[in-house]
């Protein structure tokens, strides 16, 4: 897989001049979705940043067919849309392009229901770890201690939920994590998902410049550091086999990871952290690695 293969489709996903913030990770993710899934893709988008990025009528920020839907409804709408395509013999990949609020919080029951039914849809959660569109409020995937406008002084006091692992436990055919900093890895996962029928889930890590408070030219850099410090792990589950991907593999070894502070210090949302907080996050990351390594052993195909 090379980057050149991304040019297979003439579909660009998002178009120049759309109203996304500078350095927006969704633009990067959507471009890859457009190039890889191309003419077969139909997007269902619940309320969130991408509602805005899609543009203000009569202009359009995407070159894909899009159905905008209420916050908690997207996977169910997508299942119905796909059922209608099946009934009329239309070849389509119905994609839910969702944020973390819609997927992990308000629409979690809807997501879970679609997974249990093994509906023939692909759900991509572009996770910027808070309710960014409404102005940076804490969500179910916001990191512990991160400052948001609803956790303004101490930072978030609760743990974040691991959405991809929750979806894995729904026993669906395909689950993967991805990062906007690794387009070839994400593209390969999209291609793989497109070749499978049934419920497919990709959890895309999407650092948000205004929400995490880092410079807008550093989106990819921050996303890359998340991988290199082991804070975000790329893995894939398919056909009964879970594997930690080559990009993340080296960081299974704690000694090979970059210091976590390098990742955290770039982000204003962690500016208030004390030494012991950083240590505690490091321990959480290590616990996550232990869990994934164990899952890789259990789901060894």
């Amino acid at each position: 897989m090379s980057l050149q293969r991304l040019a297979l489709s003439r579909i660009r996903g998002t178009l120049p001049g759309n109203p996304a913030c500078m350095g927006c990770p969704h633009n990067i993710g959507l471009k890859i979705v457009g190039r890889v899934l191309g003419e077969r893709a139909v997007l269902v988008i619940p309320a969130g940043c991408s509602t805005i990025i899609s543009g203000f009528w009569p202009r359009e920020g995407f070159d894909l067919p899009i159905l905008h839907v209420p916050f908690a409804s997207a996977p169910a709408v997508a299942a119905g849309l796909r059922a209608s395509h099946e009934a009329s013999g239309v070849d389509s990949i119905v994609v839910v392009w969702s944020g973390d609020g819609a997927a992990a919080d308000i629409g979690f029951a809807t997501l879970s229901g679609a997974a249990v039914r093994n509906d023939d849809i692909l759900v991509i959660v572009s996770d910027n770890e808070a309710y960014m569109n409404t102005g940076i409020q804490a969500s179910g995937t916001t990191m512990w201690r991160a400052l948001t406008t609803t956790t303004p002084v101490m930072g978030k006091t609760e743990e974040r939920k691991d959405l991809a692992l929750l979806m894995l436990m729904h026993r669906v055919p395909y689950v993967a994590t991805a990062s906007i900093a690794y387009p070839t890895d994400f593209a390969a996962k999209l291609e793989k998902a497109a070749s499978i029928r049934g419920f497919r889930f990709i959890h895309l890590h999407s650092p948000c410049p205004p929400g995490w408070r880092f410079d807008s030219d550093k989106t990819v850099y921050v996303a890359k550091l998340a991988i290199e410090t082991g804070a975000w792990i790329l893995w894939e589950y398919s056909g009964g086999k879970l594997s930690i991907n080559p990009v993340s593999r080296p960081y299974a070894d704690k000694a090979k990871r970059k210091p976590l502070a390098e990742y955290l210090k770039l982000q204003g949302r962690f500016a208030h952290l004390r030494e012991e907080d950083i240590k505690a996050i490091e321990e959480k990351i290590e616990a996550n690695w232990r869990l994934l390594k164990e899952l890789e052993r259990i789901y060894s195909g």
Partner: protein
Amino acid sequence: MARRVLMGNTAVAEAVRLAGVQVVTAYPITPQTVIVERIAEMVERGELKARYIRVESEHSALALVYGAAAGGARAFTATSSHGLLYMYEMLWWVAGSRLPIVMAVVTRSIGPPWGLHSDHHDALTVRDTGWIIGFASSVQEAFDMTLQAFKISEDRRVMLPAMVALEGFTLSHTAEPVEMPDEKSVSEWLPPREPLPFKIEPGKAFAVGNTGPDEVTMELKWLAWRAMERSRFVIRETDLEYAKRFGLRSYGGLVEDVYAKGSDYVVVAMGAWCGDLKEAVEKLRGEGYRVGLLRIRYFRPFPWEELREVSQNAKAVLVIDRAVSIGHRGILGLEVSSAIGDRVPVKNVIAGIGGVDTGPEDFYSIVKTFIEEYESGSIEGWSIPEWYMPWMGVVSK
């Protein structure tokens, strides 16, 4: 034409089968459940070539049929009470998107306390959403109205979702003989859905439902309002056409007039209990009272023209309500008053909330009291709910 004895719920399921629905989904709630259980059975037995999808909530049920309708499929769902309330957000979205969908609402009271029996709060609570709302009063009508709902909803002049309300248990679980047209003649009358110009499928790059200037929101609302106005004609036309084509009776469009036109006293009501109300009206007429019943068949669009016409020469109007807007009056009473204005005095009575039994004798005495009050001149309080809006059947009074 076949004649079968069916419960209301089964009759609705038969109408869905005859309509050739392609996608069906629902979340279980009493007393609606039998409709979708029966449809699930039809699908598994191959009597209906459709996808039956078991969702995890009513919100998702309506979301799913919305997606199916956006892709061009004929779709159906059903619910009751709290289920309908749980759909509330999606009700607006579906109507605002101008997609044809049919939903049966088997009416049931809203808690607390939990109760299974009928009143009209659930269906009337959603009156502003942009759905066509019909109220059946017999099993035959539940069948006819469901089948006609597809035709009306999909009509290019309308393109609005349609709700068929039928009373929980009184209709849903009561068996009556039903005349059913055969599959072939129904499919000639109701062919597969016409493709939409804005069908969502791959390769067509455009967005539905995205943001826009304020004027667009207002314009879309106006277009929906205008379509609802046009639906009056389509409902009347469909009622007549259906009756003629299948040799069944026409109900009279948005209302059913039982001696109302030309009577001194007009009683207005809705739903299954109109059968008992008819009995009471017949009895009173036998005693020489010039009274008639105007049964509301469609609450949206609201039949204000019919109401004005019928009440034009009437002395007084009585509205018997099965739902109340707390802080104001009965919901139907409010609508009737707004339609006929101050021309005629209107009395509003609340009854049958939570399924409290109201039979022919009750109606007889409610209507008789109303006429006697008018004739003795004691009507000044009719329009002041704080001190005069009788609640029939309230125990603690």
